[in-house]
């Protein structure tokens, strides 16, 4: 506040404030909106992901409000940028709850930020859902009841891709990925899962690219030196796209397949540089999911934004579906009652009928595996063809395993 406010001005201000309070109270709860706080990763490498997430959530809320809202109230979205930093994410989540009085929270793109947000949500007993960041820890060691997850988590994803690859004839593998903690831990669990299922697999070469390097040409010849049949990479987004563009003239894709996450944003940025016949996986590909809910959603999304919804958009939308289904069913926005409702609840996901497992609040969402192919329906990018869903039930942790992990962490 400004120093040196005159007495009259101060009185006037007090008067206005008091009036505001009285009138605010008299409008009463019937008109008040249900407030949703979205702790997003807007700047930095998450920017493209955010665009789809926000677009889908906006679309959902717009529809809901135009059909009269829920419990007679409209919904309102508040967005803050966590900048992929856990401490900022926690501060923003707090601010959304305390200053904006948000009733619910939505997570963003970074797994590290998600861990920070879930703690804040627990502290304030606000329900939060995660749709893009997919740390398995959220459902095991860092589980708290006011959280649910609608994206295949790192466990489902890692074991899912290992299961899919173990059924293929490939034996000679090479790997390329980022030389920092995520890259290493993800690769180690991939290797363990795969060799467990297929002991004769050989890891010929692991190429680690230093942090911040965008030029992959010094690394690609090493990657190819031992003639692998398949290259696995845990690069993602812009880096993966750049790797594909740079590896193409080295003839890598004539000799080996590249297996990695081919989400729609990646396919769009890579465009025609994406080689055909690459075995990949993704989390929620609109083009491969043949359900009436998905068809309707894609149509609406396309009408409004003139582009197809990314995986992140579909999953962010699905989180809203869970939330609203639960609110309708419980007829309240009280967090504790909603938690009880959500546990085991089925919901009309864009991916078909899905439910939230009671013990870890993980939706039974699987991983999609396919092979890149040109499709006349989509001119600007390749899609994955012959897509097969690896159901979550086949690869997620059993309830006993989860409880063991939780008791260990205590």
């Amino acid at each position: 506040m400004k120093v040196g406010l005159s007495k009259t001005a101060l009185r006037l201000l007090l008067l206005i404030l008091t009036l505001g309070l009285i009138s605010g109270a008299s409008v009463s709860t019937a008109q008040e909106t249900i407030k949703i706080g979205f702790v997003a990763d807007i700047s930095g490498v998450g920017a493209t992901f955010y665009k789809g997430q926000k677009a889908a959530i906006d679309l959902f809320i717009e529809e809901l409000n135009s059909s009269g809202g829920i419990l007679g109230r409209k919904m309102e979205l508040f967005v803050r940028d966590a900048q992929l930093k856990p401490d900022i994410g926690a501060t923003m989540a707090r601010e959304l709850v305390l200053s904006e009085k948000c009733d619910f929270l939505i997570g963003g793109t970074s797994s590290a930020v998600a861990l920070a947000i879930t703690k804040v949500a627990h502290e304030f007993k606000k329900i939060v859902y995660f749709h893009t960041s997919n740390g398995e820890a959220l459902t095991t060691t860092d589980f708290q009841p006011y959280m649910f997850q609608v994206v295949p988590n790192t466990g489902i994803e890692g074991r899912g891709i290992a299961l899919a690859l173990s059924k293929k004839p490939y034996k000679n593998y090479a790997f390329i990925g980022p030389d920092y903690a995520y890259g290493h831990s993800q690769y180690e669990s991939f290797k363990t899962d795969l060799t467990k299922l297929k002991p004769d697999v050989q890891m010929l070469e692991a190429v680690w690219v230093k942090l911040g390097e965008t030029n992959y040409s010094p690394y690609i010849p090493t990657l190819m030196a031992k003639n692998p049949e398949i290259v696995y990479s845990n690069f993602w987004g812009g880096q993966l796209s750049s790797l594909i563009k740079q590896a193409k003239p080295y003839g890598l894709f004539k000799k080996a397949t590249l297996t990695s996450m081919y989400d729609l944003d990646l396919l769009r940025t890579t465009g025609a540089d994406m080689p055909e016949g690459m075995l990949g996986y993704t989390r929620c590909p609109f083009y491969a999911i043949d359900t009436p809910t998905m068809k309707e959603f894609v149509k609406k999304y396309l009408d409004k934004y003139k582009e197809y919804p990314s995986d992140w958009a579909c999953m962010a939308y699905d989180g809203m579906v869970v939330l609203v289904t639960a609110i309708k069913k419980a007829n309240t926005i009280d967090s504790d009652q909603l938690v009880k409702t959500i546990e085991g609840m089925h919901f009309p996901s864009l991916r078909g009928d899905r439910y939230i497992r009671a013990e870890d609040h993980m939706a039974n969402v699987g991983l999609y595996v396919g092979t890149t192919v040109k499709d006349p329906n989509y001119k600007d990018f390749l899609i994955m063809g012959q897509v097969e869903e690896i159901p979550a039930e086949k690869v997620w942790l059993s309830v006993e395993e989860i409880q063991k992990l939780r008791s260990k962490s205590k």
Partner: protein
Amino acid sequence: MTFEYFVFMLLNGLSQGMLLFIIASGLSLVFGVLRVINFAHGSLYMIGAYLAYSLSATLTDGSMLSFLALLVAVPPAVAILGFVVEVTLFRRVYREEHLLQLLLTYSLVLILDDVVRVIWGGDPRNVARPDLLAGSVDIMGLALPTYNVFILVIGPVIALGLWLLLYKTRTGNIIRAAVSFPDTLGALGVNVSRVMTATFMLGCWLAGLGGVLVAALASVDLGIGMEKIIESFAVVVIGGLGSVGGALLGSLIIGVGITFFQLPFGRWALVFPYLVMAAVLIIRPWGLFGKPER
């Protein structure tokens, strides 16, 4: 490793070295004449890359001609930026101690990086290679990207050009005299401060050229300037501060070294430039081609 693979890795490494040379020679030249270690050289290189991106977005048709237009237009633009920086800032610190110079160039890094962030944002960008350079060349059964071959050609052209400029022209004589005997040069009536500005602009032109080349080789993001300035610094230490020939040798050692040692040593190959740098500093502190300070 087969012989074919050896040659292939060598060529691939040389192309990396040539790119590094184009950037590091600018840094070395500027140090030789101005006696300032310009940490902002990496940022100018990055600006060159982003300018190439912006310009390519307006005129890209995938033709070799539009790519050549980038090569012609962007480096002078960076040189003009260099002119402004030299006249307004660098000129004030030539007679100051090294610490102050470092402070200036380092703060310039922070400022320029933030300017780039404001203008272009945090997303990685890239420039499509022209159709003519998008494919690959067969090297004894192995595919080497045509673009790498292109860099392999451009590098020596630049090296030759610099050599001709420095040793066969009057301007070059003056620049070299400015390195060795700046006071005498002034006494002879040469406008030394103009020589300094021109050299700085030439250094920036090289940074800009490196920027265009990398934009189509890899993707461009906010980290590339910092990453290259460290490598370039190693090159300059190895080759000798102020020596263009040394910069060429240093760049090739590092480019080939990093690429080659990936295979036997993996991620430890990263240590290579710094090992060479340390060895040179111990055995020949003035660099392979440099001269001991008098």
